[in-house]
């Protein structure tokens, strides 16, 4: 089963980040790299990335066959996706154990979402 571990950036996580010393921030970043390596070594890692600031996001839509790339919608968003780990492991409990190792889980919380697969029950 694949699981997506989502890390959100919000007011609470920004407050924690703000209060961190430079050393603490270095450790935080290194812990992410270590987790990456640990997941790879365990044979569960599918993909993991951190996302650029949402101000760099563009919104793509197609209307009447025409592709429109825009900066909006400009609604005030208090929370955005900051990064993710996509892992492949046997049970939800395994996924929770990995999620608990994400450094952000010690500050705020991370979200674990099962990924849909193509299996099917023939009833």
């Amino acid at each position, binding site marked *: 089963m694949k699981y997506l571990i989502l890390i959100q950036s919000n007011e609470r996580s920004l407050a924690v980040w703000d209060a961190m010393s430079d050393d603490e921030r270095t450790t935080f970043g290194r812990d992410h790299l270590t987790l990456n390596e640990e997941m*790879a070594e365990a*044979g569960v890692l599918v993909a993991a990335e951190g996302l650029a600031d949402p101000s760099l996001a563009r919104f793509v839509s197609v209307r009447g066959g025409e592709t429109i790339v825009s900066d909006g919608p400009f609604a005030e968003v208090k929370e955005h996706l900051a990064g993710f780990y996509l892992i492949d492991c*046997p049970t939800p409990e395994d996924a929770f154990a990995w999620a608990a190792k994400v450094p952000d889980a010690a500050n705020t919380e991370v979200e674990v979402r099962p990924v*849909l697969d*193509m*299996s*099917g*029950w*023939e*009833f």
Partner: protein
Amino acid sequence: MGVLTPVEEVLRAAAPQVLGAVVRRYGDFDSSEDAVQEALLAAARQWPAEGVPDNPRAWLIRVASRRRIELLRNDEARRRREALPPDPAPEVRGDDELTLLVLCCHPALTAASQVALTLRAVGGLGTAEIARALLVPESTVGQRISRAKKKLQGARFVLPDNLEERLPGVRQVLYLIFNEGHTASSGTSLHRVELSAEAIRLTRQLHARLPADGEVAGLLALMLLTDARRPARTRPDGALVPLADQDRTLWDSAAIAEGITIVTAALRDTAIGPFQVQAAIAAVHAEAAAAADTDWEQILALYRVLHVLAPGPMVTLNRIVALAEVDGPLVGLRELSLAARDPALADHHRVSAVRAHLLERAGDATAARAEYLVAARRTLSLPERRYLELRASRLR
């Protein structure tokens, strides 16, 4: 799918024999396996153009043996190598495949590692092919294999004395590989379909080696009978077709005939087991020319046997489905609410799916629709969600 080129066929069949011969000669599973993998890749590159050598196994053993020596670069390994007699000709033995299969399914390994290692070492598939089939990155599969090999360090390459005790684990791994492929439904999943074919090939080999093992026979029959329905179980767009709605003329009649012959002989000649019973259930479905002709009484009886031999939440649910076919949806619904008290089933989306189905049959469209939607929200399968949503929208 499942059709191999002549070169692939030779390579896949030779892979475990070559590895068996090399590892028996040098005793070092880890580097021997890497070396054989490279020899297979070299052959896959060269043979289609240059032709298959007269003795393909000897060619592969020779190339793998040399490659293995090149792989062992450190001094200690060189010393060990120099102590060996020159250019040995490793021999092929009849039980190498089985020894290898049992080793790859070692209980100390995780299921994911067992699957990856079996596909590579016994099946002769490359890491990239396995990764495509399992829908994970190649590096992830590579890591699972190297972890497995690390765990197997020091394990001896001989058939274990407790072979009987190890066989259930082997059958489980083969079934897991089959299901990885079987649950694939469409387009992008073609590589996964190959896994079912590979599982059938390996189980067929095992059955030929251990014809008296009724559960290996049962497993092979179950795979054949299940796989026979593949052409009918999904629509071209990937949507699931339930058993009752499948076009039975699309079923593979040769596979069905073979499956029925195998399971009939196993039930007659060997001790009964869960795979045989599941195969027998699949055979009863296969024997019905139309869904309405299904012998549900017999299926119910078989699920009751299975419930004794190997109880589990899915067996419980399937037994209730069969019961509802025999005694009507209201009896099924009553049983279902009792079964749902089991914590393993309480929140299971398939309980909702079955309840929805039975409510629909009982004529309660409103409640059925609500249950279909609950099931659709809870499932982890995309085709299943689409199917359940479709059923719900039909009842609007």
